[in-house]
């Protein structure tokens, strides 16, 4: 019974408990408490990793290395702040009768289940279990997206379900293919699916099988990451689900999917030795950045718009991991962190904005900075941060990313820079009238909880100004590890 088991069991049990607690206020409190507890536990684990480096639990079943530990911390942290936000938000939703207390019960249970899924996916040492966990997280979020039971919500959830179901099935096929060749080396058992054992023997695996496998993994997990052209579930799911869920989807689930993809990429590179996986990821990344940047302009729904910005940033990270040099990996890891912080913060603000103006249609949201200075400033700052202006961390990572790209494949910069500018223009042309100007009549003031937003932006700001030693250290080790290709 070590900390890790606790980390995994806690959300699972809480989910069970929450599914039977009728009082939504109590549920909210419990939710927050559980999340913060998991966060504390993850900090404890982080300390251990800090002391002892890579740790393995329950003989190879789970492992923590600098790469996934900070993702674990990030996940639990954002989960906590989101639960705080979702308290205020969902209770208001209940007041105005958008959700029944019964649905709210499901919501909380699924929320914890979802976190459990992600933590499992991050900490497990087994490719198969990783897949199961991803599927679990997907199923949980499918129900969450469908929470409002409106036409659009249902169809969005359906789209999400079918597309991601199919995608993830392809990922399973990839996993099976890996197993077919690895089982010849490591024998027909769990060892043949264990990261820590696979990496060292990567070069003995059949490269052509792994190539096919990676194609499937790429398309499969890529669907989950929201890469073009498998991205189309993402905007709908973000727009139709409750805002806290959009926040965690953008902030966490995409990261986890990308994490899985990167792990596979490292393995496959180890086997094929012909950076093919890297090229694939770069290609998908570039494509997604371009398409997302262009699509931003035509959006009408505020959450859809920001989900496209998520696609863009996921594209950037994928591209950066694809380059795979030390600097690029460092940039990607940093970008992962700041993006989930800033983007979830933005979604909190968007949630409040949408509530106060009773719509998600951007044309109807006006003059927030006059109506609700807190929300207005938050939205403006968040967008400036996500657009990559210093002193926010996103700038730092993009700075490093562009440098890395120029070092290796200079021509790609010719695609990235224009895309960044176009994306920026797309964001701001919509943002400007929403934040500034005179608010519309039907918009009304309401009690909001901006604390999480400010915490997130504050941390992003901090990371932009200076990166704490231990974090930098982790990033360096992780980047090192990814660029070398074995543990």
């Amino acid at each position, binding site marked *: 019974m070590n900390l890790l088991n606790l980390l995994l069991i806690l959300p699972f049990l809480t989910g069970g408990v929450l599914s039977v607690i009728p009082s939504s206020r109590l549920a909210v409190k419990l939710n927050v408490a559980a999340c913060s507890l998991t966060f504390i536990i993850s900090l404890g684990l982080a300390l251990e990793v800090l002391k002892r480096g890579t740790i393995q639990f329950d003989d190879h079943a789970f492992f923590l290395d600098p790469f996934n530990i900070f993702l674990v911390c990030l996940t639990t942290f954002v989960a906590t702040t989101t639960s705080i936000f979702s308290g205020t938000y969902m209770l208001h939703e209940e007041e105005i009768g958008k959700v029944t207390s019964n649905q709210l019960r499901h919501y909380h249970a699924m929320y914890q289940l979802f976190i459990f899924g992600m933590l499992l996916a991050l900490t497990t040492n087994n490719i198969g279990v990783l897949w199961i966990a991803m*599927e679990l997280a997907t199923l949980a979020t499918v129900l969450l997206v469908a929470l409002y039971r409106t*036409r659009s919500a249902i169809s969005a959830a359906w789209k999400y379900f079918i597309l991601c*179901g199919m995608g993830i099935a392809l990922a399973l096929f990839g996993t099976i293919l890996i197993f077919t060749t690895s089982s*010849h080396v490591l024998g027909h058992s769990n060892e043949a*699916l264990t990261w820590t054992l696979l990496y060292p023997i990567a070069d003995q695996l*059949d490269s052509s099988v792994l190539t*096919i496998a990676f194609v499937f993994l790429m398309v499969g997990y890529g669907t989950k990451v929201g890469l073009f052209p498998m991205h189309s579930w993402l905007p709908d799911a973000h727009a139709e689900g409750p805002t806290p869920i959009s926040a965690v989807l953008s902030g966490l689930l995409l990261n986890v999917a990308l994490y899985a993809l990167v792990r596979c990429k490292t393995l496959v590179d180890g086997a094929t030795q012909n950076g093919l996986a890297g090229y694939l990821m770069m290609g998908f990344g570039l494509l997604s950045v371009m398409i997302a940047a262009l699509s931003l302009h035509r959006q009408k729904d505020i959450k859809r718009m920001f989900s496209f910005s998520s696609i863009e940033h996921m594209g950037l990270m994928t591209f950066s991991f694809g380059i795979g040099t030390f600097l690029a990996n460092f940039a990607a890891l940093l970008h992962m962190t700041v993006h989930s912080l800033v983007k979830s913060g933005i979604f909190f603000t968007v949630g409040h904005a949408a509530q106060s103006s009773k719509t998600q249609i951007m044309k109807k949201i006006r003059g927030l900075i006059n109506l609700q200075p807190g929300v207005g400033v938050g939205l403006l700052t968040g967008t400036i941060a996500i657009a990559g202006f210093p002193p926010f961390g996103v700038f730092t990572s993009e700075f490093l990313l562009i440098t890395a790209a120029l070092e290796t494949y200079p021509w790609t910069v010719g695609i990235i820079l224009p895309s960044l500018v176009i994306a920026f223009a797309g964001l701001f042309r919509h943002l400007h009238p929403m934040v500034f100007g005179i608010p519309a009549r039907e918009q009304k003031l309401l009690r909001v909880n901006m604390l999480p937003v400010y915490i997130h932006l504050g941390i992003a700001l901090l990371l932009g100004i200076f990166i704490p030693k231990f974090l930098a250290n982790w990033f360096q080790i992780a980047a090192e590890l990814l660029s070398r290709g074995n543990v």
Partner: protein
Amino acid sequence: MNSAEVLRQLSTVSASLFLLTSFALLAQRHMRAFLIWFSFQGILLGSLSAMVAYSTDSYELYVSAILAFFLKGILIPFLLWKIVIRLGVNREVETQINLFSTMLIGAILVLFSYYVSLPIQKTIMDMTRNIIAIGLACVLISMLIMITRRKAVTQVVGYLTLENSLFFTATAATHGMPLVVEIGVAFDVLIAVLIFGVFFFQIRKTFDSLDLRHLENKP
């Protein structure tokens, strides 16, 4: 070692049978037959893993064989049939494009997957390569099913067929995945089906039809 020989024969036969069922599913017009073929595929899968389990007497595989048999062969088709009856959609399955061309595409896909799996080296026994090829073909075909069918139910069946072909590949090519994975996957699939069930009624309630054309929200 003729048991291995027998096993090889059997698995090749079952592989071709499996491919056949996939084609049959691709070809079906009628919901009832569609589900029957689907359950047949499940049973085939179960028996195959049973055979493999017998020949490489590994008890894990028995479990997965039973799981496959009951879940895929009986339970899930039965549930689906119930739903179909309840929702009264046991009529013709409309397809996006006509059957013949669908079949043609399917055939092309089989060739394609053979071509794809050619470069796999001989280090693995060549049977595995053929199995992989067939598995690939089945995956692609079941994706084709999902793409060409209009009704939500048929799409789900397509999804499950996809799942089946994965299992088939796993079982036939590598004598099954480790038990944890097998069970986990199986339960995921089960949950998925349940959720599908929930969905059908939701969709039904909100759109009073299962035709996916109504399911689109134009942004």
